[in-house]
């Protein structure tokens, strides 16, 4: 944004209260389940109770005769319907494409996880659909199941897919193995670590929901769906699965009650419903219940990793070697394959100058729900590996945690890492210093001593994380296997009276875009934010956009809006030059006014807008009427938010309870538009990261493949009393390659928090002799670790 165009009272950088809050606070938000269609029916999905079984037959006659049943569909009905596609092709170390078994919309021949949809029942009421489903007789031939990656890779393990021998999806590697081996040979010290990144269930509080309708009048479909990227949903569904003309399907993601990644994907349910809405001739609604969400939403994380870090005598990192096995679940979800590769191994340099890195990833199919991106998506897993091994290396070499990090910080930018990324800018000392000051690290020893007098073990832990956000340069992503573009679109429509509607391809499901994007427009055009409305989430209204994930909305979606604003202002200048009878080069735009430089002659933005639509005195021979511009923006690099998180815990050795006493985050998100919203994003990310480290854990029974943590009574989500008040601060190095200087803030909390918390727990438990602990640091695990160390 040109400095000369800045408004005097710029709303940029202000904690402006959110425009969207009114409807949410009065119960007038419109979530998918709040939308109803005339003559709508209700769907129920009959799901597999078995983790792995052959489907020998499905008998639906009795169910079809049940009260209220409109239709029942199984895979046999879905002729000419393809499987669900995966959006990212990974090429293995053997040079071959990944094994990509079919992912049928409804189970065909086999079921492969508990919850695999087998039949769609459509009835007049939800209860009737559910009751009828109980009358469907499915002849299952149960097969042995595998739920963890080690079991799946064992010789003779039950095979899920013919197309994936040994249950392997791919083995992929990044980095220079020879250089790493050479560095290890020279090392003064080697730290080794075996860790598990625990499986999580995202648990947006609004469960997934959809309402699909078909209209014979225009041979077109409308799908309301709780989703983060309606155009991607539509493209995948029409072009790859259903073979429908894309322009005949309108996808609307209205108010969406949280996503965290889990609502990016094309799921079987809404795909089957769109298809069935024409067949049944009635609109069909489905709202998942929470148990169904646990069974069928894409899960997150689930890595098993061995890592080794080589150091020289001065504590400089020489090389990092990482071997990870990642659980893909039963089928490849939309972006599953790129999470433990492109979004993981590339982040293993962290904030450090480690010159040689090698990472090998094996992705494995198991009889569990598909695993895909969950808040952070690969980057929390990378940070967890790097920051836990750095912590352990500091302990082993007797160097202070902050000192060892500082000895290895990158300080010269741009910086080319050995794992493909090129960091444009950052100041890692600033965020570490800031975090240490805010966390009062200087006073920790006294606090620890005080805890000791009460019989408690106190610990402090650091995580200096980096993430790659602002996904992504499309050409780079394409070279890495992406099957989609990763640009964003923005349209700025100026109305004749000068108010503005922005149509964005980004999607807000809590992030506050309606406010932040309005701030950008209001600042540029010199108008109150009340005059700017932001429309998102409707393929019938917005330009083709890629949606919200990977902390990309401001840096990519916001930049698309800035580019559209550039065009608006450029056209406004031409109109003003005509009206003011001046040369275009002499027209300045500032504070909502186009002026002839050095004179008091000017036209307001409103006058220019009106002239554009009432072009009586207008250069019609040279310029089209109207003031409505669209821009597509494809970033030239990733953005690199980074920071240091510091956690302080107290462990009760008698009970194993870990109390999170304090959590400090000092982050660099580049230039900030709305500090209040950014802080809120950090808080939420921290809560999910702390949840992962402290209590959340998705568990399948190893023998039967049953989901043991299938409800909120079994899967522990953090509640208010589990969490401390957060201390949050920022340092700013503006991103160098987008005009907003923005890097993204949505995932940072979830990326830094797990390692910081676990390092704090390890620090607390070290005096008791505990050498290792995996997440979650539940009382049971901590207590067992303490007993094990004492034995």
């Amino acid at each position, binding site marked *: 944004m040109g400095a000369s165009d800045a408004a005097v009272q710029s709303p940029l950088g202000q904690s402006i*209260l959110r425009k969207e809050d009114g409807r*949410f*606070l009065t119960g007038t938000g419109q979530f998918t*389940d709040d939308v109803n269609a005339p003559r709508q029916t209700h769907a129920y999905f009959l799901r597999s109770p078995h983790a792995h079984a052959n489907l020998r037959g499905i008998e639906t006659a009795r169910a079809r005769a049940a009260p209220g049943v409109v239709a029942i569909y199984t895979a046999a009905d879905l002729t000419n319907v393809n499987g669900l596609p995966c959006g990212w092709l990974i090429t293995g170390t053997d040079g071959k494409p990944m094994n990509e078994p079919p992912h049928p919309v409804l189970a065909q021949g086999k079921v492969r996880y508990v919850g695999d949809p087998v039949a769609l029942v459509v009835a007049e009421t939800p209860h009737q659909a559910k009751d009828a489903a109980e009358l469907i007789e499915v002849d299952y031939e149960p097969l042995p199941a595998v739920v963890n990656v080690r079991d799946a890779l064992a010789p003779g393990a039950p095979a899920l897919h013919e197309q994936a021998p040994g249950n392997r999806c791919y083995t992929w590697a990044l980095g220079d193995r020879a250089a790493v081996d050479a560095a290890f040979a020279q090392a003064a010290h080697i730290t080794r670590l075996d860790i598990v990144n625990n499986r999580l269930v995202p648990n947006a*509080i609004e469960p997934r929901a959809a309402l699909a309708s078909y209209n014979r009048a225009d041979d077109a479909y409308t799908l309301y769906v709780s989703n983060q990227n309606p155009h991607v949903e539509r493209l995948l569904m029409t072009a790859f699965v259903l073979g429908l003309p894309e322009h005949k399907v309108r996808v609307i993601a209205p108010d969406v009650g949280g996503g965290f990644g889990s609502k990016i994907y094309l799921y079987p349910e809404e795909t089957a419903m769109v298809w069935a809405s024409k067949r049944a001739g009635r609109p069909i609604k489905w709202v998942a219940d929470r148990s169904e969400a646990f069974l069928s939403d894409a899960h997150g994380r689930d890595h098993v990793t061995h890592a080794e870090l080589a150091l020289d005598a001065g504590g400089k990192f020489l090389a990092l070697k990482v071997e990870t096995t990642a659980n893909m679940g039963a089928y490849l979800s939309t972006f599953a394959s790129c999470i433990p590769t492109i979004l993981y191994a590339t982040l293993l340099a962290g904030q450090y100058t480690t010159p040689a890195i090698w990472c090998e990833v094996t992705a494995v199919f198991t009889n569990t729900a598909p695993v895909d991106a969950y808040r952070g998506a690969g980057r929390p897993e990378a940070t967890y590996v790097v920051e836990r091994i750095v912590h352990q290396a500091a302990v082993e070499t007797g160097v202070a945690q902050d000192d060892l990090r500082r000895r290895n910080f990158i300080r010269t930018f741009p910086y080319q890492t050995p794992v493909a990324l090129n960091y444009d800018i950052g100041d890692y000392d600033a965020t570490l210093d800031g975090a240490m000051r805010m966390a009062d690290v200087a006073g920790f020893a006294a606090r620890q001593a005080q805890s000791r007098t009460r019989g408690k073990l106190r610990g402090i832990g650091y995580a200096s994380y980096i993430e790659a956000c602002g996904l992504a340069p499309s050409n780079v992503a394409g070279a890495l296997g992406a099957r989609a573009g990763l640009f964003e679109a923005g349209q700025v429509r100026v109305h004749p009276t000068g108010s503005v509607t922005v149509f964005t391809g980004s999607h807000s499901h809590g992030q506050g875009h309606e406010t932040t994007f309005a701030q950008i427009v209001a600042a540029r055009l010199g108008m109150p934010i009340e005059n700017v409305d932001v429309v998102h989430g409707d393929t019938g209204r917005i330009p083709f956009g890629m949606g919200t994930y990977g902390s990309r909305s401001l840096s990519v979606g916001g930049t698309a809006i800035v580019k559209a604003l550039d065009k608006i202002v450029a056209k406004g200048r031409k109109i003003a030059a005509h009206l003011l009878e001046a040369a275009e080069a002499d027209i300045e735009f500032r504070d909502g006014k186009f002026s002839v430089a050095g004179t008091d002659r000017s036209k307001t933005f409103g006058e220019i807008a009106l002239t554009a639509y009432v072009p009586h005195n207008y250069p019609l021979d040279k310029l089209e009427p109207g003031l409505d511009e669209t821009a597509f923006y494809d970033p030239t690099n990733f953005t690199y938010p980074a920071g240091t998180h510091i956690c302080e815990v107290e462990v009760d050795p008698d009970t194993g309870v870990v109390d999170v006493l304090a959590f400090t985050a000092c982050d660099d998100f580049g230039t900030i538009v709305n500090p209040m*919203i950014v802080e*809120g994003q950090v808080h939420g990310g921290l809560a999910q990261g702390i949840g992962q480290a402290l209590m959340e854990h998705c568990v399948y029974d190893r023998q039967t493949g049953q989901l043991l943590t299938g409800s*909120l009574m079994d899967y522990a989500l*953090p509640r208010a*009393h589990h969490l401390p008040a957060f201390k949050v601060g920022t340092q700013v190095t503006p991103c160098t390659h987008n005009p907003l200087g923005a890097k993204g803030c949505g995932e940072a909390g979830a990326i830094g928090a797990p390692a910081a918390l676990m390092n704090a727990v390890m620090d607390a438990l070290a005096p008791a002799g505990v050498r290792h602990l995996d997440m979650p640091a539940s009382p049971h695990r901590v207590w067992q670790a303490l007993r094990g160390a004492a034995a």
Partner: protein
Amino acid sequence: MSVSVSLQVNGKAVHADVDARTLLVEFLRRDLALTGVHVGCDTAQCGACTVLVDGRAVKACNVLLAQVQNASVTTIEGIAAADGTLHPMQAAFKECHGLQCGFCTTGMVMSALDLVARHPRADEDTIRAELEGNLCRCTGYHNIVTAVKRGAAAMAG
């Protein structure tokens, strides 16, 4: 089997003949179109459906409509002033950025009203403990706690 139920909802008399199994939340959402009452789980864990029944916070997913015979039910739609001015607790949530996606918010505000009625000067620990029945996945609770404190102060005048 159907039952005949009379109650007050947001100050208005309501009478309905419904299937005896009808849950309060189903009735509010489906029959009265009070869609600010949300359903986030099936085990009474999340609190998104919280409403006030005779002033007490109740999870509407866990109550049959027949159980609130002659009761007075208040939902999020019934707490702002007639002219649309937000209730002080609603305003506090906005001022403190105590909401993000907005799905848990309506239940959270209703729980906060019950909390403040019982603990007008609740400190942070009390607020955190009292919000035990309401899950939020977006805010990390930090700003919700601040909002409840501010709302309580505003309600005390």
